[in-house]
């Protein structure tokens, strides 16, 4: 099973990075999502797989029984899942904003750090174009 999941991790990385190397903004964002899942799974698999023994202290016991899953990587991954979501949400909002501002979802169309100033003629009294 480890072998199978290791290949899955590798494939998630390959697909995620392939998308990260694309020119289309949405593909990059999808790539990011795949990478997030791949990395979480990587930590999970590398810590060692234990079938069906969650790190819970049993009824009437005071310490965690031997043979249960490792709690530490799980704590790390839990944090990572949440932060990964935050990053994806931000990346998507950014992609949307870039598309709205530049008018293209081609990364190579992003050639300036600032959008050109709006033409003076269409400026209203409030300064809004």
């Amino acid at each position: 099973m480890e072998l199978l999941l290791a290949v899955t991790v590798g494939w998630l990385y390959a697909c995620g990075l392939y998308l990260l190397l694309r020119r289309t903004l949405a593909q990059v964002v999808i790539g990011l999502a795949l990478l997030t899942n791949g990395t979480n799974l990587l930590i999970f698999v590398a810590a060692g797989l234990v079938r069906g023994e969650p790190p819970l202290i049993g009824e009437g016991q005071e310490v965690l029984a031997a043979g249960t899953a490792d709690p530490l990587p799980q704590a790390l991954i839990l944090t990572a899942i949440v932060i990964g979501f935050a990053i994806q949400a931000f990346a998507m909002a950014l992609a949307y904003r870039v598309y709205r501002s530049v008018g293209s979802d081609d990364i190579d169309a992003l050639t300036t750090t600032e959008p050109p100033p709006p033409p003076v003629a269409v400026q209203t009294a409030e300064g809004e174009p």
Partner: protein
Amino acid sequence: MGLVVAIAAVFLAVPLALLLPARRWRGLLLAAVPAGVFAYFVSLLDRAAEGRPLAWSAEWFPSLGVELAFRADGLALLFGLLIAGIGAFILVYAEAYMAGKPGAGRLEATLLAFMGAMLGVVLADDVITLFVAWELTSVTSFLLISFEQEKLKARKAAVQALLVTGAGGLALLAGLVVLGQAAGTYRVSAMSAEAVAGSSLATGALVLVLLGAFTKSAQVPFHFWLPGAMAAPTPVSAYLHSATMVKAGVYLLARLHPVLGDLEGWRPAVVSAGAATLAVGAFVAVHERDLKRILAFTTVGALGFLTMLLGLGTELAIKAAMVFVAGHALYKGALFMAAGAIDHGTGTRMVDELGGLRRAMPWTFAAVAAGSIGLAGFGPVLAFIGKEAALEAGLEDGGAAGGWALAAIVFSGALFTAAAVVLLRPFFGAERAPGHPHEGSAGLLAGPLALGALSFGLALAPGVIEGRLIAPAAAAVAGEPVKVSLKLWHGFNTALGLSALSVGGGVLLGFAVPRATALTGRLMGARWFPSGPKVYDWLYYGMQRLARFHTVWMQRGYLRGYIAVVLLTFVGLAWAALVRWGGSIERDWLTPAFYEAAVAATIVAGATTAIVHMSRLAAVTALGAVGFGVAIVYALFGAPDLALTQIVMETLTVMLFVLVFYRLPKLVDRGPMRRRLRDGAIALAVGVTMTVLVLASLGHQQGQPISSYFGETAYLEAFGKNVVNVILVDFRSLDTLGEIVVLGTAAFGVFALLRVRRWSR
């Protein structure tokens, strides 16, 4: 302690110079500080002569054996007296030279800072202390050369000087550390020549230290920065580039002579560098028409002369060097200050535009005459005694080095004399000057006249310094007691004959300049002639071109390009580590159940769909399949919390994707097939690497995992039975707080990105 106070007093005068109003007495007041230091050094002379020099030290980096250590032996005091004594005159001169112009206070303050640093160099007994002061002189010198910062030439010259001496400084630092390692101590006075000679590091230390000394003392081929530094105001040139800073390299050679002088490479390297510098400096000097540049090149020559003598390293040569250090500082200081007075009085420094000044500027004439006799090295001046001793040292040596030294002295003696004649010519003939020539003020003349007079006085009564100053200094350089008896008149001997010969030739040459030098001047001005400034420019701009080329080549501006480089580097490094590790990844795996295999297959299929399918809906669905597949893996292998979180977050992610993708255009895979294949290959390489890394890490555990600690204490100390939850909210609750902050920040970011309207079209 007194030594520290002396150095500190000079530094404390720096703010004073900035705060005092620009009055004529300010220069005098400030000069009182170095004058006091001078008097203090005089009081230390007897101790040094008796062989028990004043020393002071304090711990600095005890773990590294580095101390703040000062020691006033004969050599330190000789240089210290020159620095403080000439420094006092320079401050008075600077006040008069600036004549109330703005920035005079800044100039004097920087001069004082430089003076303090320079005293630090010569008094330091610890090589690290010495290095710090050494670098401080480079920095203050940079500030002084670029004093007229609005002039491009001054800025360029300052950068040039800083780069050359700074590069040498780096070499010196390495050299001093290596030397300290070889000697087993950073205390100069505690270093033994035997320990260094016996170390395998000796040659490295020698080469690096010599690089530092040669760059600072403007030895060929690093000499070119010194004439460039003449862009500085004249007080700076007179102080830094004649008497003090450029002599720091010579001082270093002298200081380390007892330790390094017996090494095999010392004599050939130092003598040849010195002799070449002496010849080049003297040769170029007669081709110059600007008073300050003539002086600058003769200074280069004089520094070569001193270096050469220290390279010879015989007792006589060392004595000659010590006398010449003092003699040169006196006559060259006088000449520089007088050159400034001429500039002040006539408005030019070009010798060809000047004539007959002796009537309008009699005192300046006296100073130049006194200095010129020193430059020619023929007459009752201190420099003459030094030069005669040097000739005798060359004659006595008998070896090849001595022969070369002798030839260089005779050759340059003639050219120095010619330069002296050139310097004197503006005072004779018909009166000629761009402006109305007038004599300088007392402040401008006090320094050159006093130094010129001293140059004579000490030569006529050498007994004043021979036993108290020169002998202890020479002893410090030689590393053993030296008897010194200076005499102006040695009778008619070979040395005097050689001197007379070269001076006679020089006088004739001096009258023939510039006709005699027309041809060689044209040669040196030729485009192909590899002069120092040209080579420097070539290197300087070449480096900028290289940087530009490199930047354009590396920084192409495509993020994916950088990502590809990072990924390939990672793959290379990871495989290098894996091959070196060489372990096996064969072990007992869990046998996958069919449903587990199906989940893995779902994830793989989802990811594949995401890269090949160009439909937005398909992409979102595929992403969902991957996310929920991963959640099932978590659930199957003992991580219910992760499964729950993953399901919640995945649901939100998919919803967000749907919302956003709906507003984005259709997916297109841009770029040619070739690039897609290339990117695919890179991505696949990383994927394979990751798979192998996962498998390798599974059987490779380093250290004791801390998980068991959490398992043991979760209930007993934190009263929770779900260990993962206890870690998150109790043991590592601050991390969780950080996570919440990240979420909040991202939320603000998303909000701002969606709300801001000003960017939209």
